[in-house]
């Protein structure tokens, strides 16, 4: 979506901004009916999107777009109701309509869709009020090619009705109670290429029917009781997260030889199936076997085209590193977080993966030595996660005196492509992190630790390209925040868990730097909406929700997680420590100007936080 805007010519962009500047501006062009009808679809779509983003769109304004617009994306808009839908029903040229997460959409508000004869794509994901009766309306949209109805209220009976939509090439039924009988009734959908039935009631018996979909290239059977992958000749992408892969049918002959992407996070295997799923998969480029009980990683030797490999939370360790080294220079992304790999493993691996762009070593035992190997041998690295490791920021020289310790993070400077760095790690100090301020190519940096102070925040303001900066759980002060000069490029500043900051200080920061989105417990924000807008259109949002839930995202972003972390903050320091903090070095790092927040004030604030929750 944003990409399209980037590509639009600058004057088109200026016109869009001016047209959507205010409600008054809209009134001055909305009666130009002839011009509106002549608008090329991509401009009409862009104008509609701009109006929506500026909160200037209302049902009757939709009328002016009914001939020109081909694509409407209303995901997550809670205002969409029957009145909106009545106007949208008149969009004769509409090809694509996204109503995912529109909570007021129900069966009767869907009725106007029956008139959208051009419609080929419809996304109703997570519209929980849509049930079988709503599916009846869809039956008249005969041209429908792509349909997402995951996590709606549709049941077995409603799913059977979809059999009449013969043109479907994509069908997402994720989280619905799809049964074996349903699969039999849907066998006529021979154009199906993408079929998602995660979390359904489908069993091995029903999965046989999937074989009839001979054009299928994507299949998601995650969280089902299916124990064997159907042998579909052209299947390129198979998801069977959390499945127990225990048997192989005798009819299997092609052994999924076209497979390019295999996602089996959390799956379990028998010895026989483990060998089957991974043997001679030379065409495969993407493998996710995170959270599986796999012990033997020798299968990697044959996967010579592998680009993406996720081995996180497995038994992977230094003794298996040689197999990853065999994959060699095709590998772009490697996730070995929460494994037993140490710096020794990184040393063995680093000369063999020269084109690695993404590397996660979080929650491992790697220490500062690994930084040296990474920095010298992986020149293409763009994204590096070293959170929760044994990295201290210093490499001890022979002499045990502290003066002899060399800062290790300075070596990262040789990674000229590095854009994203994560060092969320409670034991890193300001001094250890000080070399980071010279990593001028960084666009995303996330730090987290109770020993970080204003010093770190201030030194990072020298990063000229930083877009997103996180300094979480740190002992930042109001005064320090006031003196912080964010780089011009900064868009997001995450200060969650910086408990010393007051509501006023946060509000002041937001006011001084309106372009920076500040994240903190004291900021009221509509993150859910923003997140929705960030989701790329091409992948159904459903898979995101699933990914974060299933893969046990290392950076939980649920509100529950946030509130938990703020509780941690409150119990972390007792009164005595708070008093002691008044004279801590952090307050001396800054020129004494103005007044510091006195301890009683901090305590008062601290108490009020406790009482609030």
């Amino acid at each position, binding site marked *: 979506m944003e990409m399209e805007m980037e590509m639009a*010519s600058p004057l088109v962009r200026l016109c869009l901004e001016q*047209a959507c500047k205010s409600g008054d501006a809209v009134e001055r062009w909305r009666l*130009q009916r002839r011009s509106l009808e002549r608008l090329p679809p991509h401009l009409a779509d862009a104008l509609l999107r701009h109006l929506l983003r500026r909160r200037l769109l209302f049902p009757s304004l939709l009328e002016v777009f009914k001939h020109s617009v081909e694509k409407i994306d209303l995901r997550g808009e809670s205002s969409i109701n029957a009145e909106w839908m009545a106007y949208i029903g008149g969009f004769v040229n509409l090809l694509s309509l996204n109503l995912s997460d529109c909570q007021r959409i129900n069966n009767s508000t869907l009725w106007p869709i029956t008139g959208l004869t051009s419609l080929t794509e419809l996304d109703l994901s997570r519209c929980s009020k849509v049930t079988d009766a709503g599916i009846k309306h869809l039956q008249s949209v005969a041209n429908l090619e792509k349909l997402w109805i995951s996590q709606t209220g549709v049941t077995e009976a409603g799913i059977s009705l979809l059999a009449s939509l013969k043109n479907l090439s994509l069908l997402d039924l994720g989280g619905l109670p799809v049964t074996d009988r349903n699969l039999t009734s849907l066998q006529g959908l021979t154009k199906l290429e993408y079929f998602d039935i995660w979390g359904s009631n489908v069993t091995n018996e029903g999965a046989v029917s999937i074989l009839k979909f001979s054009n299928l290239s994507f299949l998601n059977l995650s969280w089902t009781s299916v124990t064997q992958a159907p042998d579909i000749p052209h299947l390129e992408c198979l998801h069977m997260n959390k499945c127990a892969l225990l048997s192989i049918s005798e009819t299997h002959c092609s052994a999924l030889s076209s497979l390019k992407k295999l996602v089996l996070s959390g799956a379990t295997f028998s010895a026989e199936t483990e060998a089957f799923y991974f043997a001679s998969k030379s065409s495969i480029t993407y493998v996710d076997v995170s959270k599986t009980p796999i012990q033997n990683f020798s299968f990697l030797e044959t996967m010579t085209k592998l680009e993406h490999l996720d081995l996180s939370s497995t038994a992977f360790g230094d003794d298996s590193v040689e197999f990853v080294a065999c994959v060699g220079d095709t590998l772009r992304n490697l996730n070995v977080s929460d494994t037993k790999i140490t710096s020794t493993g990184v040393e063995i691996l680093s000369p063999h993966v020269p084109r690695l762009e993404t590397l996660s070593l979080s929650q491992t035992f790697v220490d500062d030595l690994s930084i040296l190997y990474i920095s010298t041998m992986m020149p293409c690295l763009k994204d590096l996660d070293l959170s929760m490791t044994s990295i201290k920021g210093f490499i001890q020289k022979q002499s045990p005196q502290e003066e002899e310790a060399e800062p290790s993070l300075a070596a990262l400077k040789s990674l000229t492509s590095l854009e994203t760095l994560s060092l969320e790690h409670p034991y890193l100090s300001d001094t250890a992190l000080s070399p980071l301020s010279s990593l001028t190519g960084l666009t995303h940096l996330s730090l987290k630790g109770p020993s970080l102070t204003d010093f770190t925040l201030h030194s990072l303001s020298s990063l000229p390209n930083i877009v997103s900066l996180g300094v979480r759980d740190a002992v930042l002060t109001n005064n320090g925040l006031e003196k912080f000069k964010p780089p011009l490029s900064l868009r997001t500043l995450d200060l969650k868990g910086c408990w010393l900051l007051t509501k006023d200080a946060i509000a002041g920061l937001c006011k001084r730097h309106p372009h920076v989105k500040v994240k903190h417990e004291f900021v009221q924000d509509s993150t859910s909406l923003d997140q929705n807008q960030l989701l790329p259109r091409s992948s159904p949002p459903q898979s995101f929700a699933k990914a974060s839930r299933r893969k046990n995202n290392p950076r939980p972003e649920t509100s529950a997680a946030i509130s938990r972390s703020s509780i941690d903050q409150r119990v972390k320091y007792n009164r005595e420590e708070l008093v002691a903090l008044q004279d801590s070095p952090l307050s001396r790092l800054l020129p004494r100007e103005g007044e510091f927040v006195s301890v009683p004030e901090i305590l008062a604030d601290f108490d009020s936080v406790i009482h609030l929750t």
Partner: protein
Amino acid sequence: MRETVKLISMEGFEFVIDREAAMVSQTIRSMLTSPGGFSESKDGVVTFPDISTTILEKICQYFYWSLQYSRGKETEFQIEPELTLELMMAANYLHT
């Protein structure tokens, strides 16, 4: 003498502007520079049967504004809301 080009609107109004300014539009640029292709590249005259005089005038203003902007003079380019739709379509056609 500075090289100029002539842009003619739907109603037949002629705008004579610097070639350099007209080159802000990718469409005009390719018309003027394509070797032996368009007659425009010889005569330096481009006719726009779909762009009204008001809009073409605004487009010419934008060309000059854009040149100045690229040279570091950061002013705002004013667009009356009434012109946004037609101007957007012209800008889209001209790739400017």
